[in-house]
């Protein structure tokens, strides 16, 4: 049973989304896996929805909200790849929260760029193509990929992506 007051819960619930994951879990930016887990366990004892079942509705909702952000923070920081993406984001944009799927994907993306682009020009066009995909402009993405391929013919990664894009274009029709 948590011995937190409703006020404390309420206060944290309000700002949980405005803290960095490190601040929320009360750990240093270089925290190790073991200490991270300790911190998460200790906070879970206080804020787990089950820990506060006897508190009034509002406080329980607060705990639920805090729990969800705690879980998110733990999820990102315990996974070295997601954590790297998060640290990069903190540095670049200062955004305090990251989408889990995005953190996973942004790592995969940087991997794939490294794997696929080997000349400055092809890299450039690949980036453009990726941006087009993000903006939903498939025809332009296809064009840019074809350009990337002229600078780096035979790149299997480019070819695969091109094929995938064509399939999607087809499907969208």
């Amino acid at each position, binding site marked *: 049973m948590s011995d937190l007051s409703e006020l404390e819960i309420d206060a944290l619930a309000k700002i949980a989304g405005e803290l960095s994951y490190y601040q929320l879990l009360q750990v240093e930016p270089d925290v190790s896996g073991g200490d991270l887990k300790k911190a998460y366990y200790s906070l879970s004892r206080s804020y787990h929805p*089950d820990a506060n079942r006897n508190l009034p509705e509002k406080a329980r909702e607060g705990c639920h909200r805090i729990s969800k952000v705690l*879980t998110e923070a733990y*999820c990102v920081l315990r996974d070295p790849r997601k954590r790297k993406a998060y640290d990069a984001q903190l540095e670049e944009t200062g955004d305090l929260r990251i989408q889990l799927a995005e953190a996973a994907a942004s790592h995969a993306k940087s991997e794939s760029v490294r794997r696929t682009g080997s000349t400055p020009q092809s890299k450039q066009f690949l980036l453009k193509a990726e941006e087009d*995909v*993000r903006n939903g402009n498939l025809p332009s993405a296809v064009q840019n990929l074809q350009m990337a391929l002229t600078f780096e013919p035979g790149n299997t990664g480019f070819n695969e992506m091109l094929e995938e894009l064509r399939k*999607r274009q087809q*499907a969208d029709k």
Partner: protein
Amino acid sequence: MANQAIGIDLGTSNSCVSLMRDSAAVEVLSNAFGENTTASVVAFHEDGSITVGNAAKANIIHDPAHTVSSAKRLIGRYHFSEEVRKAQAICAYEIMEGSNHGVRIKVRDEEFSLPEISAMVLREMKQIAEARINEKVTKAVITVPAYFNDNQRQATKDAGQIAGLEVLRILNEPTAAALAYGFGKGLEQKVAVYDLGGGTFDISILEIGKDIFEVLSTCGDTFLGGDDFDDRILDMLADGFVAKEGINPRNDPFAFEKLKVAAEAAKKGLSVDEEVEIRIPDVLVGEDGETRSLEHTITRSQFGELVQDLVQRTFKVCDEALQQANLTVRDLDGIILVGGPTRLPIIREAVSQYFQQEPKADVDPDEVVAMGAAIHAASLVNSDQDAFLLDVTPLDLRIGVAGGLAEPIIERNTPVPIEQSRNFSPFKDHQESVTLKVYQGDSRQAEHNELLGQFEFSGFTPGLRSKTSIEVRFEINADGIVNVIARDPVSGQQASTEITLSSGLSEAEMDDILTRDRTASVKTAANPDDDSQDDDLVIEPKDSTDTLELVADDDLDEDDAGPAIGRVALKTVAVGQPTPVMTAPGSDEDPNAAAETTDTDTGTETRDQLFDRSEDVDLSGDPEDTQQE
């Protein structure tokens, strides 16, 4: 003391109920026959009465079409799903399509939804508990396979409500087992829970840190279990019979059920003996009017060969779970076995070999899940909470986007509770509404996943697609149940739609079910001594004339069937007139009084008829990672 909360392991084959009273020891509550587990089988008798349990299971042989077993395989499923097709092939009872593409079971001209069938089993377990402790029970923690999706969890929760229970929590079976194993011991261990049941296999890897039970990963196969072992033996018996007699016993529903019972009993016999002889004196009567019998001996090693591939399939799933947890077998401090088939020596040996250690011996594989549920139930109603469960979601949660794809929002094995929001833009300029489709599963192709539901959202100002943004929030709560909310972040107004996704019963159907409460006509064997019980319910376990005999080979004697090793004891229930509504001892209250106030998590929930397969998705997501796969 009022307010006892029980733990129920609602199994595919057997259910078990347990209680932890006032922080004392955890007890398993046995039924009127003194059995700690009760078959999850519902028999619909000719006189309109309904019975549940081991007696009902014995009824399969006489009346397969009116005896519903393994309902858990169908709960929360769509009628068109592969699982339902498989079940239709093997079940003698009638499986039909209901509203919302749901499944209905038709027995004696009445149609029942799956939550109603499961509610009958739950009500029986509730009444077993009430009879044992002599108190009314209204609260329960109900366990489900970790691999259950949202539809199955929601339907199980509905079943609890129909049974007149406030469902405190839907708890994953392996997590419950780990809790029962580690509760109050102050352990610091990593353990694997290997749960092989009648129809499902689950593996969970947990880290126990004193009072914290953290699930690191969970994987499973919802169509792999001890029943598949029976099928292998059944095939062997049937093929042998065809070869010898030229008649296929599979075509005779009674013969088929007899073979099934014999196969299961033989399998269980092999848990004890090296060799089992199966004798069915009267499999069927041929066209010539002659009664045919079947005799067959099976050894452990023959059985091992028959099921080897099935056993290996479980380890494929274990590989995956370990990999997801970032561990190897050497990191594990303990293996906990759950489920009837783990009593089989071939399973124990294979498990020891795979994990390179002996499984824990002091865990009862049939009772540990219910015990864990009872511990959790007790800690949820008592203020002195001493265990925290940090569970995970077993499946990727996805949203449908243009091109028939499904983008992952929350990956499997992400801890819960969790919330993720995403911004999407409509597919076309000036689009006025979008259809959101939410899926669970591991495929990028939307259609290969389980559709949890879909809903229209039009609470945004139409405009250029590049300027229009819709925020969708996805939440998975501690029950593993999914909620989705869409909102226009620009207007920021109350343009939000909250739905509880469900393929199952609509709110109206639930109301109707609760009003009619057909589950209340279950004649319970739980407390036959109770005065409130109708007198003409007679329960007499007795040997039936159809008894199948199974004897260990070394005990075999010409006339003597030997000791009853693996003997199929058939209990027969003699029933009188239908009984009126069964209420708890000493109470004339409506047993569903508690039901109205359940479901606190979702508040005002609307369960629209959401399903329409033909409709196309019209959302384009943020497709930046499309090229990766």
